[in-house]
């Protein structure tokens, strides 16, 4: 799992929780570094902020989907507009969550994504 958010607290808190849930987590504050990492490694789940310096969430989504069409990308954003959400889904986002969100909310989405990944690989 990859978590990208230029708010360091988000990465810190989320990674801690998801690691406790048993996921392997990498956090990035710099989206550009994350994009580079995407070239080298395949992630199953990506949680990314939308509005970031240099490379924004939509670009991360595009890069990830291009690399791995089955990737589950969850977008979290401080200000979500309908058009941005639509664009994200059109480009293959798995979910679109607006900040502030409850950890449980995100956890449900991640579980759903994980289930889909498992079904796909077993079926």
């Amino acid at each position, binding site marked *: 799992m990859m978590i990208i958010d*230029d708010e360091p607290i988000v990465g810190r808190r989320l990674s801690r929780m998801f690691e406790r849930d048993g996921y392997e987590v990498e956090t990035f504050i710099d989206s550009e570094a994350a994009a580079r990492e995407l070239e080298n490694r395949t992630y199953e789940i990506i949680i990314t902020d939308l509005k970031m310096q240099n490379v924004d969430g939509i670009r991360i989504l595009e890069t990830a989907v291009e690399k791995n069409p089955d990737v589950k990308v969850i977008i979290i954003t401080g200000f979500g507009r309908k058009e941005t959400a639509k664009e994200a889904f059109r480009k293959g986002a798995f979910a679109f969550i607006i900040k502030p969100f409850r950890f449980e909310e995100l956890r449900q989405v991640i579980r759903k994504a994980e289930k889909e990944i498992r079904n796909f690989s077993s079926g």
Partner: protein
Amino acid sequence: MTGEFMQLKIWHKMIIGISIPALLTLIGGLWSYKYINDVKKRHSYVQIADDLKEDVLEVRRNEKNYLNYRDHEHFKQVLASITVLTRSIKMISPATIDEIGKDEFLLLNRTSTNYSTVMEKLHAHFHQEKQSIEKVREEGRRLETFAATGEHKVGLSTNFILNLRRLEKNYMLFRDRDSFTQLDNALSQLKGMVESCYDCMPYVEAIRDLFASYEKSDSGIGELQISGNTLEEITDRIARRERQHIETFFTITQRFTLIALILLCTLGPMLVYGTASYIVAPIIRLTEITKKIAEGDLSLRAPIKEHDETFTLAVSFNTMLDHLQLSHKSLEKSMELLREKQEEVEKCASVGLLVSGVAHEMNNPLNNISLTAETMKEEMDVLSHGELNECLQDILNQSDRAKRVVENLLNYVGARKSSAVERLDINSVVNESVNLITNELMVTNIHLNKNIPYTPLYVKGDHNKLEEILVNIMVNAIHALKDADPGVLSVSISHEQADGQVLISIGDNGHGIPESDLKNIFEPFFTTKPTGLGTGLGLPVARKLAREHYGEIEVESKEGEGTTFKIRLPVYEENV
């Protein structure tokens, strides 16, 4: 005249302009035709006069022959040539006679008739003269015979008679006064010699007759010659006069052609130019006005003083202008409304932008707080003291961040309008602002390059707000100089007297602003700084505050070389 002329329409002016030269040319053409005809006629008159003269000369030639031979044959020739002359005269048409001169022909006719009469008379005289000569010779011979017989008295010698006959012959030969005097003297002697010589008498009588005949025929010849001369003179005069006519004609033609040529060369272009400009003048007047109107003065109107087609044009044009002016006014009104609307829309848009920015800026710290709180809640038991402390600090920091966002927002919106406008020395305001960041400069190891004049330079404004502008921009510069070595912050003030403005330049040699971002830096919530460092409201607030002071902020930047902000504020003037 001009008044009437002004009423003409262009159409009529053109017709007149074309017809006058055309008419003049036509008249000139007709006149030339008639003129050439006249010349031709005159030329024929010269021919006629020459012919008449020829005839007269023929008559005179025959007359001379006749006077030489004095016979019937030559007499007939003279008469024939006279007939030729009279026939020639008769063949001339009355119109021609009128043209050349009736009097001349009257005289010519009379003279030729007279000539014939004199001729016939002369011929009769010549006949009589011949008879007289015959008679003299006969009587002479008889006198000779009479003298030879000697039956007369003394003194009448044969010699004397012979001498008498010689004198008689001389007289007949010379027919002059001398020989007549000699003969007359001899006859007087004869009378003296024989007192009543009956035989001598017939001779004397015959001589007397001869003398009379001679006198008559001589006077006849004179008369004839006078008449002939007159004929010659008349025809000569006619011919000369007709020639003179033609000469005059040619001279006139030459002069006329020259004058026409000069007029054509001088008046022609003037006339054409005059007519053309006269026709075009109203159009030009209209054009000039329309040009002025086209340059933007819609209040002008075309003059409506012409009476030709341009009148309608000017009226239509003015009506069009009225409409145009009305539409222009309503357009301006619409534009005004549109501008107002646009301002409103822009306000709305910026409100929208503001809201989305605020949402983003608020939601992030909120999200951080909520995530931290959740962590604490879920991990309450597991968290170490240190971790717990870290979480609590995060929550406090994020609340502060949210507070700052709201503060800046309020600043931007201008809710805290505690402004105190006063006369301020901008130099000291800048100095104080620089003092506020001195600590920061020291910590970040940035060199300050300050160029602030000592003479006070006054502006009108709020001390705090001006300070905020300056600090905002200087803090931005410090952020930009994070990686510069050595970082230099330059602050300078100059008085731009021409514009009555103070120019405060704040420059750095930092990383600069990419060109694509330059246009956005004054937009609210646009920030390129790492999260938490900037709210995206610093520059928008600075600009808003500068504009409140009737000033402006501009930015010049080159990536990798640095950025300079230029703040312009109007200089405070006592009398303004």
